[in-house]
């Protein structure tokens, strides 16, 4: 047994940087067209991107919360969530992140921010309804492991193109419901939506490599923090079980709920969209049960 080892290792940091490379390609691809207009336009676009990235790093948590339709809650509003998070902080030595709740009906959770000092941990109403107290603590332990691993920033940088594209797509889909005028606008804006769809796909692919390892690592680190891998395995099964049996078929956690979380899909504990940017839940459960056996044997 070892202490919950929560600090990032140099090797892991290097691999995170390597996994970020495709994400940077996506960023480069958004700037590249500006070079067609001339080198100065291109450089201006690069400068704008760098400035945006700098601002982003400071304000990432607010962006993500806004995109997920979440709001920060105080300890008087959500004493249970705060008590669990505080206890996890006490045992990990981490500073306390802010706690937020999203109104989405789909059960899910994510962590965002630019580091342990400015992190925010968010759960959805659906998660609170569906999970028992021990499973809630396990999911929050997983999210605290993200905060501790400093990969919330890497995850947010990777998720940002997808976030923007997802918001554009959501807005465009809403236009279709706005009567004939909305439909006309939607047709006119179709090229923009096509670019957004392309960016969404590319961004999701790029974020995949990164988030895959992030999730496995957070599963393990979170388990070393909570000592209860079985609870997390149970929670993952409940979160990924869609009502009605088939993915996205149920009315309860149906399209409306999922759309709310689509922009931040790659950040969630179980992917909100149909694109599986995370390792399959069955895989993660098998790994967690291995950890459980190790804990029981005291190895």
């Amino acid at each position, binding site marked *: *047994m070892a202490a919950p080892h929560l600090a990032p290792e140099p090797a892991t940091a290097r691999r995170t940087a390597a996994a970020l490379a495709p994400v940077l390609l996506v960023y480069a691809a958004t700037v590249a067209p500006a070079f067609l207009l001339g080198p100065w336009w291109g450089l201006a676009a690069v400068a704008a991107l760098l400035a945006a990235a700098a601002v982003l790093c400071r304000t990432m948590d607010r962006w993500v919360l806004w995109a997920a339709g979440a709001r920060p809650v105080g300890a008087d509003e959500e004493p249970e969530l705060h008590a669990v998070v505080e206890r996890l902080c006490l045992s990990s030595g981490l500073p306390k992140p802010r706690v937020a709740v999203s109104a989405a009906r789909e059960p899910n959770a994510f962590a965002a921010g630019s580091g342990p000092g400015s992190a925010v941990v968010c759960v959805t109403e659906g998660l609170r309804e569906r999970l028992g107290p021990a499973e809630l603590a396990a999911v929050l332990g997983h999210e605290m492991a993200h905060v501790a691993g400093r990969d919330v920033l890497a995850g947010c940088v990777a998720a940002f193109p997808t976030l923007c594209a997802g918001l554009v797509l959501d807005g465009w889909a809403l236009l279709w419901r706005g009567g004939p005028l909305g439909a006309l606008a939607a047709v006119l804006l179709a090229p923009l939506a096509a670019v957004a769809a392309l960016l969404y796909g590319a961004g999701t692919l790029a974020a995949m490599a990164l988030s895959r390892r992030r999730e496995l690592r957070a599963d393990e680190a979170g388990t070393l923090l909570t000592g*209860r891998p079985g609870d997390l395995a149970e929670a993952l099964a409940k979160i990924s079980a869609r009502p009605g049996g088939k993915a996205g078929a149920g009315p309860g956690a149906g399209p409306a709920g999922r759309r709310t979380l689509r922009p931040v899909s790659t950040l969630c504990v179980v992917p909100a969209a149909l694109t599986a940017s995370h390792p399959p839940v069955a895989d993660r459960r098998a790994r967690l049960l291995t950890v459980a056996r190790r804990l029981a044997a005291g190895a």
Partner: protein
Amino acid sequence: MSRRAGRRPGPPTLDRLFAIPDAGPPLEAATGFTPTGVGAVGHRIVEGGPFGAFDRARRDMLKLLTSGNAPGVAVSDDPHGWAWLRVTRAPGSLGELPGDLHLVNAVMQEAGFGPFLFCTVVWFGRRGRRLALVHARRRGTFYLFAPLDGRRRDAGLEALAAGALGEGPGGVLPLEPDPGRRFPLWDAPGLS
């Protein structure tokens, strides 16, 4: 896992629990609060069931704790997966209580479950009011928690007591410098 254990041993701060008796006199002089004889260790209920490694270690620890001049011991757990081990000695002095609490921490740490202990609490009281001296194991620091009715905290009393224990190097105990990490413990046994 064990590879990392060798590189980074657990914090050698458990012995600081033995400094708790030194906190009694200055605390009483400044605030009038005296030891209630109640202390507790908070820990995670690690998975594995009654025959798993964690429960074996806990049984061994309870056996040691309740042999000889035994204190009163009670166990309580919560639905989120945490538990408290409450240790009761005669009120008024801090004679054996810190030793008991140290034993609980040391045996569990020796068995490899140190990371799953989150804090140790010693209670002080005056006319029905309570004041907790909390040792945060991971940080190796102490802080004060003075609960009031309605989930409020008596910040004035906490500051007064912290002042008596001395901030800075001349102090009796190493106190937690970050106010954001002095977490309340509303479910700790001994609070009422």
